[in-house]
């Protein structure tokens, strides 16, 4: 999988990231704190008052946190596959520059996936640490939930990159975030169970990669029974990664080495 040259692509991405890491790490800390405080603690106190039995038997903060971990990874993954890929193909043509060296399309795609995966991992680990600071679960258990978050994040990197690779103009990206990513963020079981959705929407929420990650993460952190057998969800998310990556190679080849 990780060819030596894909590691060189990874290294280059890390070199670019080194320039902006401070701002990026600060927001990776700040976002979960703000969300968990506002939604989990603030809104959660109202929810808990009105639902003495809790959401699915637990406090709202405990219900929300593992789901939000996965939602955050999902969004981070989509982000890694969007504007940066557009810049590589079209704006800065840095992908063209890489391909003039021994690096080929497979190493380029693999290196991109590896780095994006590393970014999702960073964001998820930070979230898990903060989640345990909010006393949702012990640190070890929180860190275990990074597993499904990472799978969802990489699935979204793959799917989003495959999408971006097909875009001639960047105008598709804001639309993608507005009509795919934000709805997925809100309605895939992180903030409330998908059984609350209108019947016709439930299958759509069920089909999202995020839903499967949320179920797994909540099972790890809270001990709830996931609605899908765990290995089926893992296989489903892995399929997103494999298919998304495969769908990236074609348009990359067509556009970068015509």
């Amino acid at each position, binding site marked *: 999988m990780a060819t*030596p*040259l894909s590691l*060189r*692509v990874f*290294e*280059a991405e890390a*070199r*670019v990231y080194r*320039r902006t890491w401070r701002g990026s790490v600060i927001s990776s800390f700040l976002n979960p704190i703000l969300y968990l405080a506002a939604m989990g603690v603030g809104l959660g106190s109202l929810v808990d008052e009105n639902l003495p039995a809790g959401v699915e038997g637990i406090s709202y903060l405990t219900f929300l946190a593992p789901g939000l971990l996965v939602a955050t990874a999902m969004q981070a993954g989509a982000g890694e596959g969007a504007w940066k890929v557009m810049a590589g193909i079209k704006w*800065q*043509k*840095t992908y*063209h*520059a*890489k*391909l*003039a*060296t*021994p*690096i*080929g399309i497979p190493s380029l795609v693999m290196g991109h996936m590896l780095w994006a995966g590393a970014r999702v991992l960073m964001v998820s680990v930070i979230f898990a640490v903060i989640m345990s600071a909010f006393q949702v679960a012990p640190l070890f258990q929180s860190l275990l939930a990074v597993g499904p978050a990472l799978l969802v994040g990489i699935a979204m990197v793959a799917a989003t990159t495959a999408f971006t690779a097909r875009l001639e103009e960047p105008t598709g990206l804001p639309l993608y975030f507005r009509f795919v990513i934000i709805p997925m963020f809100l309605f895939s079981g992180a903030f409330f169970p998908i059984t609350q959705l209108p019947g016709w929407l439930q299958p759509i929420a069920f089909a999202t990669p995020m839903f499967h990650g949320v179920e797994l993460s909540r099972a790890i952190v809270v001990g709830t029974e996931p609605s899908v057998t765990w290995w089926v969800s893992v296989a489903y998310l892995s399929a997103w990664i494999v298919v998304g990556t495969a769908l990236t190679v074609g348009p990359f080849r067509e556009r*970068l*080495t*015509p």
Partner: protein
Amino acid sequence: MTPLIQATGLTKRFGEFTAVDDIDFSVEQGESFGFLGPNGAGKTSTMRMIGAVSPITEGSLSVLGLDPTQQGPQLRSRLGVVPQEDNLDQELTVYDNLMMYGRYFDLSRAVVRERIDELLEFVQLTEKRKSKVDSLSGGMKRRLTIARGLINEPDLLILDEPTTGLDPQARHVLWDRLYRLKQQGVTLIITTHYMDEAEQLCDRLVVMDKAKIVAEGSPRSLIEEYAPREVVEVRFPSGVLEDIPDRVKELAPRTEILADRALLYTDDAESTIAGIAGSGLEPETILARRSSLEDVFLRLTGRSLVE
């Protein structure tokens, strides 16, 4: 000795469109070889095939004895490429751009570091080492791209329109650097639509037009073959030339009538100018010059190179 590049019947098609149509050429070790032609002639497509980033459609191509289609990574590891559009990483420093690029060739950091020092010296960017690429001028970016193309000590440097868009001063600095590389024995492949660039840099060149090679030779031999020794450029006030093409054509054995001026090809400019004076025509300006590759191109295609 086998040539460094050997192309036979080389063809590139994009769907219905033929970008390169059945061309043959070869480039020898240490040569500086040019592709001269207007935009859209197929120069860049040819470069991309040589650079193993674009599969050939038909024909055969061997570069450094390798097959670009089958041995792309091996071949690219021995090439330096300076693309038409700068594709440096704008947000990184000069140093980081070079380090990053060197690492793509799997060179150790220590080796790349050493080469960066030498190359920055060579392209006169040592003081800009820590500057962000964003802040460099067009000419500096070009020079940095050339340094980047040399980081793997390539056997062949491919330059696609190296000075397009640069001001005259920056062009001369760049030509000077390329000339030095040539002196050092680096094999250069250059595409350009500037005849002066081709005359300055190329030992041998092919003229491309509409996907085909229309002529081949050294700049001097092409001029000797396709254009008389001298050209008299006669400029008329706008509109006048349209009415008198036949009278102008009588002034020299071969003439080209362009929008605002006429080119008279002659072996003796003085007597041609005397002829104009005796003809009763009243041109705005008359200029005699030596013929150039531009004239060769005009002769071969009926159009000028840069429009």
